[in-house]
Every structure is written in structure tokens, then in C-alpha cells.
């Protein structure tokens, strides 16, 4: 009925316009009409020559060709606005020869209102990863405002997960696991809980984290029987017990084993960075270097957990000219390839994921120098070095010329 009145009104308006125009000289009407036609033609032509943004249509399903399936990268796709950039990033990941990515799926993004899920962003990442033949390891975290304590004067952050909200978080994990079962079968529960920052600026609490694992583990398995629940990667740090900043990762891992965590995770995620040291530097409890992962593995074996595999979900070197813990670009490439070769020899290790493949926007600080491709999709030399490694092409020629004499 409303449509009828709208059409009737529009028709009446048209009649009135024509009636008004009839008082104007026909020549003026013809001239105006000619200009309107010209404008329409010009607009059509201009639209035809302006390049349209790339359309993220799904391609035929791909598979990742690689000689080294442990090659993996951590992506940052969830904050990407344009879908075509997600697709282009994942095409570059596939072409590099990495069959696995780690991607963050924040609870606060997906369930920003209680029981109202917005899966759009997650779905498009999953859709394009699947199309490229890439497996996703999902990192879960970030608490929506509604699940955080609302008491006045109480300070909370996106990382504040009160025990009272464990059930809501568990429900979200279960829903996520069920929705993406068969597509995402690896889920990391939280990130670096041994840092106060990552634990809502509270004193870190290994037993509290085990409580979280306990409730999440069974719910995730009920939702997806094939899911592999990964215990959170710990930040490599030497913070002593009682520090307000966090706790040494070795001590924290020991503490969660003592709290009975072994029954509540299927694999351990690990963060290990090389900082300014080469990949083959021997590990030591008082040193932060790449092979610190072996010390974590030692603890697992001490607690009779040798069968549980490890996924290194963040590692890498940085080649910023202004960060004191960085190396030169050539060292970064050499150390990264050394690390990948080392990882291939460790039968307890599933993946070695490089932080970070690409960021949606530049940060203009040293963190830009962790990336493998630039924001505008320029592939850095380290990308090609990893690609060669993944393809099984060993580097026989020198990568650079000898230093000039003089």
C-alpha cells in the first residue's frame, strides 16, 4: 500500500515538473537535455577507466606446495578492513610455502554483546585460508566489556578475565570450536599469561590459568572431538617470582604442571625469540635466545609429558636499525633459515611460526621490521629466503658480494 502511494506521489511530481517546463523555451530544454546526456556519457566512461578495487572472489581451491610443512607464519588478518587484502596476504603465504598460519580471533570482537555473535570477520579469514589450502591455528583471547568486572573504581583491561567469566569464555570457545570444526582444529587458550599485562595487569597466577584450561578443555573437545587444545605460549622473560611485571617462563611452566595442567592441554604453544643472538646459540636458564624452547621441552619431559608436542607459534629476529635487540637484515635471514633447519630436526616440534607475516598498517617503530612483506605487499628478501627453504632449494651461491677491499 505504501509503495502504491509512493508511486502515485512520484508520478504527480513528474507531471508538475513537465507542466512547469512547458513554460520554458523548448531550445533551453533541448540544451539542458543535451548536457545531461553528455554528463551521463562522461560519467559512464570515467567509471569504466577508473580501476575497480580487487574483488575478493574465491579462486579454485589451492594446496600449499612445500618441502617443509613445519614452516608457518603468524598473520594479522583480523584487523584488516579490506577483504581483498586478506586474500592477497594468504596468497602470498601459500606462495611462500607455509601451510599453516596462526591468527588471532578475539572474543571481544566476535561477541561484543552477550550472546550476540558476529562471525563475519572470522568467516572471511577462514573462507580465504581454506581456499588457499592453509591450516589455521586460532589464538583466543581479549575479553569483551560485558564479561569484565563492572565495579566502580575497579581497573580492567581487555585482558582481564575474572574467574566468574570463565564459563562465558568457555561457551565462546565451544561455539568457536563447533563452528569451525574440520577447518580450525587447533585452538590456543590465551596468550602469554606469565606477563602481568596479558593477565589484566594483575599478579600472574599459574593455578588460575590451569583453572581456565580445565573448564575450556572439556568444552572444546565436546564441541569438536578432533580439536587440539594448545596451552598458552609464555613470553620469554627472566622476571623473578614476585615481580609485578610477570614471571620467568620456565618457572611458570613448572608451576602449571604442578597445578595439574598436563591433563588439560593436548599440545604446548611456545614463543621464543632470537633477539640479538644466532639461532644456534646454546640455551641457558638466564639467557633469552631462540633455543630457550629446548628448556621448556626439558620441563615437559621432567613431568612425563614427552608425548605432548610443541608448536612454536611466535619466533623470529628483527632488523630494525633503531632497536637495541635487533640484528642486521643479512643476519636476520641467516638466523631465520638456521632456525627453520633446526626445527626440522626436532621430532617433538610441529610448527615454527614466524612473527609476523604482514601488518595491516605501519607502526613506524621497530615492530615493522619483524614483517616478511610490507603493508603495500612488497615481498622482502627474507620472504624469498623462506620461500626457497620451503621449496627445498638450498642456497649455493653467496647472497651478497664480499666487502670491497680498500
Amino acid at each position, binding site marked *: 500500500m505504501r509503495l502504491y502511494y509512493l508511486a502515485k506521489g512520484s508520478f504527480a511530481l513528474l507531471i508538475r515538473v513537465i507542466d512547469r517546463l512547458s513554460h520554458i523555451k523548448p531550445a533551453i530544454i533541448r540544451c539542458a537535455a543535451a548536457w545531461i546526456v553528455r554528463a551521463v556519457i562522461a560519467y559512464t566512461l570515467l567509471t569504466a577507466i577508473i580501476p575497480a578495487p580487487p574483488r575478493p572472489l574465491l579462486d579454485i581451491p589451492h594446496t600449499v606446495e612445500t618441502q617443509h610443512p613445519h614452516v608457518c607464519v603468524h598473520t594479522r588478518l583480523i584487523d584488516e578492513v579490506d577483504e581483498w587484502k586478506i586474500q592477497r596476504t594468504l596468497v602470498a603465504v601459500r606462495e611462500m610455502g607455509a601451510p599453516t598460519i596462526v591468527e588471532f580471533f578475539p572474543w571481544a570482537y566476535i561477541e561484543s554483546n552477550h550472546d550476540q555473535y558476529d562471525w563475519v570477520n572470522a568467516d572471511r579469514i577462514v573462507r580465504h585460508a581454506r581456499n588457499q589450502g592453509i591450516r589455521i591455528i586460532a589464538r583466543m583471547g581479549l575479553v569483551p566489556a560485558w564479561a569484565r568486572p563492572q565495579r566502580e573504581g575497579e581497573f580492567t583491561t581487555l585482558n582481564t578475565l575474572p574467574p566468574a567469566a570463565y564459563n562465558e569464555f568457555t561457551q565462546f570457545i565451544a561455539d568457536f570450536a563447533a563452528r569451525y570444526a574440520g577447518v580450525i582444529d587447533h585452538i590456543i587458550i590465551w596468550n602469554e599469561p606469565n606477563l602481568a599485562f596479558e593477565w589484566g595487569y594483575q599478579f600472574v597466577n599459574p593455578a588460575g590459568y590451569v583453572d581456565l584450561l580445565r573448564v575450556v578443555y572439556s568444552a572444546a573437545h565436546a564441541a569438536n572431538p578432533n580439536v587440539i587444545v594448545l596451552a598458552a605460549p609464555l613470553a620469554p622473560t627472566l622476571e623473578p617470582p614476585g615481580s609485578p611485571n610477570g614471571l620467568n617462563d620456565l618457572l611458570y611452566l613448572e608451576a602449571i604442571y604442578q597445578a595439574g595442567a598436563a591433563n588439560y592441554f593436548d599440545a604446548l604453544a611456545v614463543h621464543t625469540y632470537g633477539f640479538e643472538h644466532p639461532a644456534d646459540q646454546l640455551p641457558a636458564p638466564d639467557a633469552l635466545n631462540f633455543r630457550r624452547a629446548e628448556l621448556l621441552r626439558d620441563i615437559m619431559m621432567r613431568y612425563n609429558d614427552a608425548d605432548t608436542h610443541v608448536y612454536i607459534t611466535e619466533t623470529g629476529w628483527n*632488523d630494525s*636499525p*633503531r632497536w*637495541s635487540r635487533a640484528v*642486521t*637484515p*643479512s643476519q*636476520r*635471514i641467516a638466523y631465520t633459515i638456521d632456525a627453520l633447519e633446526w626445527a626440522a630436526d626436532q621430532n617433538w616440534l610441529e610448527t615454527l611460526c614466524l612473527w609476523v607475516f604482514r601488518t595491516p*598498517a*605501519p607502526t*613506524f*617503530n*621497530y615492530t615493522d621490521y619483524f614483517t616478511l612483506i*610490507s603493508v603495500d605487499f*612488497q*615481498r*622482502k*628478501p*627474507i620472504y624469498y629466503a623462506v620461500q626457497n627453504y620451503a621449496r627445498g632449494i638450498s642456497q649455493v651461491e653467496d*647472497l*651478497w*658480494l664480499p*666487502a*670491497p*677491499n*680498500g
Partner: protein
Amino acid sequence: MAARTQWLIAFLVITGIIAATTLLITPRPPSLAELFPSGQIRVGVDPSYAPFAFYIGDDIQGLDIDLAWAIGNDLGIPVRLVALGFDGLYDALITDQVDVLISALPIEVSRLDRVIYTNPYFNAGLVLVSPHDSPILSMRDLAGLRLAYEYGSTAHTEVNRWLRRIRPFVSQPYELESYALDAVRLGDADAALVDAISAGLYARDHAEWTIQQAQVTDLLYAAAVRADYPARVTVLNESIKRLFERGELQQIIARWL
């Protein structure tokens, strides 16, 4: 009275009222004492980035430090340096622990909701370095010639980009930027693509070698203030402009690069 005169008087009266009202409601620019209520300019710096700001003994020195002192002298206000970590610079500014950041900061569009930048005082982008009598004045002049650069660096990525755009040149990667510049100095390469800071430092260390530089990419460094203090930027821009016109800014840059 003629109608024309009446109109003229009316026009003058209205114009006068508008002018007076404008003068009354237009806020006068804040004084320096109001802009910097602590009586000094609190300058946040990250003293870990030579030659812009770094420790020599207990003193912080560098290009940014000299620029801060020069601005203080120009405005007649004492400067107090506040040493901060790079990650904490913007937080210190936002929480009003410092009045301005002068710390080799690239202009970041994403921060413009909370920060205003001054006009840039240094361009740290990539430069093409060649001997002073070389015909190489841009990347397009490289066809068929030899270009040295640091393997894996930002320059390397830029070289790959240019190789797809122009007639080919001979690409010569070296392990370090200094080796790439050595190659040009010793005649093993025709030009080097390095960042402006490395080029400047190398030229300082090899004063006997005269070079020319052509800017290839831009990375503009500027001072930053809180977005809710736009008058501070105006004052700082005017000061930087005066320093430039007097040649002091160029002298400061030449002292360190």
C-alpha cells in the same frame, strides 16, 4: 540626506560592529607562559638513537637535543630533557609528562587524532649516493650501471621495486650498508642506495670523499605535541622556520650528519 549616503553610513556602521565583535570574540593567542606553564619546555626524547639522541657519559647529546636547545633559545624558554623509552614517548606526551617530543619521530597519520606534528625538520628516507661528478641524479639514470645496497634491507626491497620499473641496472648486494658505500667510494659500484642517516654518517667519516645525494623515498621526522594544544605547534613551527632562515637548522644537521 541622499539615499546613497545613508546606505554608506549604514554599511560603515555594520562593518564597524562586525569588526569590533570579531576583535572581542576572537581569542588572543596564548602567551608562551600559558603554552608552557611549567616555565620550561619539557622535551621527551629517546636517548638510544644516535646521532639524534644518545648518551655520552651522563649527558644526552645529538641532533634532536641541539634542535631542542635551539628552539628553547629562540623562544627564550629553558628546556628540560626527559629521557624516555621509545615505546613510552607518545604515552608520556598524552599523559602530559612532557610538552613536546623531539625524538626522530616519523609522521604517523594514524596518530593524528591525538597528536599534531610540526613541519618536518629532517628527511630520513632512502637516498642515492654517488660521487659528486657522477651523472646519476635519480634512479632512472642507473640503466646499465651498478647499484650497491645492503642485502635484506629496506633499500633492497626498493631496488626490487625499481628493477620492475626501469631499464635494468646491475644489482650489487652487500652484507652491510657501509660496504655498499665503500663499493661506491672505491669504484666497485656507480651508486649506493642507503638511508639518509647512514649516508650522512658515512660522509662524515670519509670527509675526503665528496658525494652527491638524491632523495628516493621520504621518511619525515617532526616534533609532536598533543592535539589539544595546537598553539604549541604554531609556536614551534615559527621557531623552526626562524632557525631554518637563520641557517641554524642546517648547521645542527651538518654537525651530526
